[in-house]
């Protein structure tokens, strides 16, 4: 950052207090988590809590019906969705739905959240379908949902962030976060990690969010963290290939790490292209 940029940023922090603030862990999520911590969680009680919010109920039912979970019959109630998805994935899915609802529905953010949701579902699907990858589908799914939540925060806070995003997406050599750091004293991965920590997400997911633009991550990480990063990056690549939307240059930078991590070669990748479930 140049001195002018530093003082511009400092001035911005000192002078503006905007309307949107990212809350600590939302009350409804706390209630769901506290029910889940019990030895014998009461599904009816949970269904009541979730059912009190129409948006959450609809989001959860639609998730349970998405092809990624391979459910044959159609889910019609929160209770059924809970039984099919299980408690862990329900809690994570609800965290994702709440996160999205915190932000205004600007066209750019709507596209962003839709892409995140698709990448999350594809990540869950990949973790179940890649051989020898011992990563829980719900962790891969949650990481996909939260991986880029820092971008949504920065879009709200920094007026020129969309321009930075465009530049970072088009960068073929430098890392995505290096482009952000040239303009701001932080980056979306650090912002996202702090947010995930404050929502009590598992440590591996928080660390993966922090390092998800490093291929491979600079500091030593455990295999769960590395797998999540690689799976979500592959999921983003598949999503972009299928939709031709929001093309970025990340796969060019990440593919060698991801394919090695996931034990893939070009032939097996082509095989995956042919099996992607509909979005």
């Amino acid at each position, binding site marked *: 950052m140049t001195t002018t940029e530093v003082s511009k940023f400092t001035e911005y*922090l000192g002078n503006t207090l905007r309307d949107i603030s990212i809350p*600590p862990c939302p009350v409804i999520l706390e209630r769901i988590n506290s029910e889940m911590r019990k030895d014998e969680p009461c599904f009816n009680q949970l269904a009541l809590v979730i059912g009190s919010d129409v948006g959450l109920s609809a989001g959860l039912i639609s998730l349970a019906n998405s092809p990624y979970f391979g459910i044959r019959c159609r889910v019609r109630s929160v209770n059924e969705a809970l039984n099919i998805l299980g408690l862990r994935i329900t809690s994570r899915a609800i965290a994702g739905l709440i996160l999205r609802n915190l932000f205004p529905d600007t066209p750019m953010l709507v596209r962003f959240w839709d892409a995140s949701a698709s990448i999350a579902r594809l990540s869950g699907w990949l973790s179940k379908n890649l051989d020898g990858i011992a990563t829980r589908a719900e962790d891969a799914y949650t990481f996909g949902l939260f991986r880029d939540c820092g971008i949504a925060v920065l879009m709200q806070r920094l007026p020129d962030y969309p321009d930075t995003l465009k530049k970072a997406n088009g960068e073929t050599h430098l890392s995505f976060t290096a482009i952000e750091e040239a303009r701001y004293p*932080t980056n979306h991965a*650090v912002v996202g990690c702090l*947010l995930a*920590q404050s929502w009590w997400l598992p440590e591996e997911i928080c660390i993966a969010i922090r390092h998800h633009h490093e291929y491979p991550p600079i500091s030593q990480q455990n*295999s769960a963290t590395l797998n999540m990063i690689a799976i979500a990056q592959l999921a983003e690549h598949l999503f972009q290939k299928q939709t031709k939307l929001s093309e970025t240059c990340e796969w060019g930078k990440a593919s060698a790490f991801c394919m090695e991590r996931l034990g893939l070669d070009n032939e097996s990748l082509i095989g995956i292209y042919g099996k992607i479930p509909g979005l």
Partner: protein
Amino acid sequence: MKYLLNQLDPTTGFLDRNGCLNMANDLMTRARTTGQSLAMFWLDIDRFKQINESFGYLGGDNFIALVANRLKCKLSNRAEIGRVGADEFVCMVPNLDLVRSEQMATELMRIIEPELELSGIRIRPTVSIGIAILEPDDDTFGFLERADRAKTAAKKQGGNRYVISGSEPLPGRLGIMLVREELEIENKLHTALENGGLQLHYQPIIALDGKVQAVEALMRCRVNGENITPTKFIPVAEKTGLIVRLGEWSLLQGARHARCMSDAGIITKTAINVSRLQLVDPKFSQVLNAALICADVSPKLLELELTESLFMDISDTVQSNLRVARKLGIGLAIDDFGTGYSCLANLKDLPATKLKLDRAFVCVLPHDRRAFSVVKAMAQLGKELGMIIVAEGAETTEQVEALTEAGVDCIQGYIYAKPMDDISLFSWFKERAAL
């Protein structure tokens, strides 16, 4: 230190048994010449026999190589390491006293214990450690033997722990230090971080004119209905590195709290504790800025409290991180000043805005006139340096009177308010406003 290639163990690249004897001999001579202490750690990997039986000798060798590599990566510039048995290593570290040896033993356990994969199966290795500190009448074999015996004692107690050789007779010590309690606390901290078991409480800091100059955010931990006191969980968090994650969580929560108070029309600073481990990270300023952005709060409403342990190493990175914070407008308070590693010389290196005098000076007031003179001199120094002087731990009216006479700017202590949760804090402000 250079040794013959034929004294190196091919699996690990460490010195073999003979090489170890030579190494021990050299280090002992050097320690005695320079008058420095020397610590020996005898490490025995737990359950190695089962690993050999389950994965074969090749698998066992791979396992040992992986463990050795961890030791090499983390310790190669600080310690001399050798392999003295199939699953046993000796690690020697000059200039390490008993207290720091115990810290080192915990660190060794930390280095070894992360999960590793062997033929697709996850294993969490643990280690038993014997510690010996060089004594005047030790010869090479005697020194090694004491460490070995202590290791055997650790093994007999169930492994995954360390035992200090010869420390049993020391007054006031058990001699054998069990780490089970620490591991339990660490486990609870992990649970707290993933289940919402952390909370911040706030203690007001009152200026002599009655205004609330700041509130200090203090972390509380509750797991499965049990409160764990900060005196227990903070040292474990510092030893294990978990303090960084706790510190980052507290940074964002504290910043959010500052924003909430400001929204409620309460204009006072929130002081957040940051640890040495956070500040030695060159990327600390990124985390600080991320917290400001997430909380959407003015940096002028925040203060960072630096523990005196920071003064063990005021590196360029630490100074640079602190300068960034000051440039943003964040206040810097030095906590527990006057004890441990903190000293006057540090004041010239740190851009601090506040000094918090340790409670040791306050609890003996008003009777101890020497303590009173120190507090008075510190208050004068603070004024010269443009810093706010806070006295911590005031509990009686007499202490407040003495501190006022000594000229401190602010007082923090039970006499005014105990630490309380955010809801109680808002009520406390409301009641004060109504008076």
